[in-house]
């Protein structure tokens, strides 16, 4: 049953326009059709902008534990890197996709606050926790400046800026923004996986583990793994969120112990 379901989903999202359309109610008139289709066209531009590494959210400052894994000789070469990447993505799938999903499904302030507070208690690794809040607050800052037409983002920033009750974790902010911009939840979750993959690979090139061309080859090679993980972990409730990479978790916690380091996490 699960198989059939995911197969049909996969077919559908091969065409991004279709995936986006499913979220838009069927228009009644020709004018409405035209408006909806121009909205969908606009969505592509928002989607690509949100996923572009040029978006100044500070993702380049984080290695997801890769630097610590290198300094402890757990990752030494491109083969190790591939294994690391697959595990990092699986961990993002099992631990963070539920937060992305729940935030994108109900993009409102009350849900977001609850998810943010729960994630604060869930990210028990200080290095990962700080990386999450710094990227989340940067993303919210960028999104409020870019998507000025979305009132809720402005309100959130006004209400919670400087507040100690929320931490602005990345996954719920990402889900919330994608939800408000109009992505469907599957695209949102796949996009989150993509951003993780992109940042780990980008960190690997700067750590000199792999060259830029080989990095692009690797990115293409692991895409089917990434898709499998999206299908496996998507649409889950936050009560199911689990971490699946204890070795990487212990290693990432060591990040602050390194005498010399390139990355913040």
């Amino acid at each position, binding site marked *: 049953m699960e198989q059939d379901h995911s197969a049909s989903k996969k077919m559908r999202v091969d065409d991004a326009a279709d995936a986006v359309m499913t979220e838009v109610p069927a228009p009644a008139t020709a004018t409405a059709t035209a408006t909806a289709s121009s909205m969908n066209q606009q969505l592509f531009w928002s989607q690509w902008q949100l996923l572009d590494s040029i978006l100044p959210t500070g993702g380049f400052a984080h290695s997801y534990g890769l630097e610590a894994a290198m*300094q*402890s000789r757990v990752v030494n070469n491109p083969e190790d890197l591939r294994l690391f990447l697959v*595990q990092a993505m699986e961990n993002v799938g099992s631990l963070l996709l539920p937060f992305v999903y729940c935030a994108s499904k109900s993009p409102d302030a009350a849900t977001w606050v609850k998810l943010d507070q729960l994630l604060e208690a*869930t990210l028990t690794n200080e290095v990962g926790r700080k990386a999450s809040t710094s990227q989340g607050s940067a993303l919210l800052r960028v999104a409020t400046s870019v998507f000025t037409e979305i009132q809720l983002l402005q309100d959130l920033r006004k209400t919670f800026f400087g507040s100690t009750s929320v931490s602005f974790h990345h996954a719920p902010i990402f889900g919330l923004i994608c939800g408000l911009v109009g992505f469907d939840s599957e695209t949102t979750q796949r996009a989150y996986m993509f951003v993780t993959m992109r940042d780990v690979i980008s960190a690997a090139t700067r750590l000199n583990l792999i060259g830029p061309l080989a990095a692009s080859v690797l990115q293409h090679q692991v895409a089917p793994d990434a898709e499998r993980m999206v299908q496996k972990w998507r649409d889950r409730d936050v009560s199911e969120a689990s971490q699946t990479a*204890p*070795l990487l978790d212990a290693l990432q916690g060591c990040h602050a112990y390194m005498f010399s380091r390139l990355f913040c996490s």
Partner: protein
Amino acid sequence: MGEIMELDAVADGEPATPAAPTATGVVRVEKVRGRSAVTRCFAKYPLKIIVPSKVGSASSGAVWLYSLTYGGGIVSGDRISCTVSVGDGCTAAMTTQASTKVYKAVGLKCSEQVLEATVGKDALFAVIPDPVTCFSTARYYQKQVFHVSGSSNLVIVDWFTSGRYENGEIWDFSSYKSVNHIFLEEDQPLFIDSVLLEQGSNCSIAERMQEYNVVAMVVLLGPKLKHIQDQMQDEVKNMMSVQLRPPTSGGGRYAARPQPLPSQKRPPLIASCSPFGHMGTGMVARIVAVSTESVYNFLRDHLAALEPFLGAAPYSAS
């Protein structure tokens, strides 16, 4: 260890509390004449709870609870569920006598252990068991939920091994899931942790864990444990920082290096500490190690400072 009071049947004639109708064990620790005492202890198959009257020095006034299972392990389909309440100002330690074995799964049946504990004001509860060892094909699920107040003190050690790794049974179980939740007054989530290892689609557990055989977590929470937290954080930092160094640059690193040089040996034990909670009242250490013995040593060294509270140092007899 002194005389043993064994309470493996309904000791006080009461039925299990309505809140936990399926509980296989219920323990209540309260102050009696100024000392921590077990005022209720109930356990039924497959759980056994032993309360030795003397562990360590009597001056500590701590209660020790030994949780045992018939046959020394949990068979497929068993569900053990225990409720512990540690009253205001009381001290209790809960431990095991040997590693908890989780036997081979029969079909898709899981072995389950659930612990629900309430820790009162100024109370200390230490959950300091031996590791869980899952045999090949085993399926294990564990959930521990702790309700604490701002002045409660809590020690949780939660750890598991790759299996009977000395016999070559390494990361061969089907699934292991351990959930630890700590809630502050009014059910505010303070620490929400869930570790899941299952034989997987993208890579096997053995591939993920590499040469490491043990995964451990130590949680220290509360004002009484502040100095132990600080000490552990400092010592772990010192231990790990000498192990971590950037790879020696010998030309470009694009080329694959299938054989790490001897100097590139990985640390046999990797540990890191993180504070948690609003004021950093809690600390969690994550450890992965090649051998069980090295983790016993780590725990013995770093938890020795609990002796004044518990009357005996954790893992000193292991």
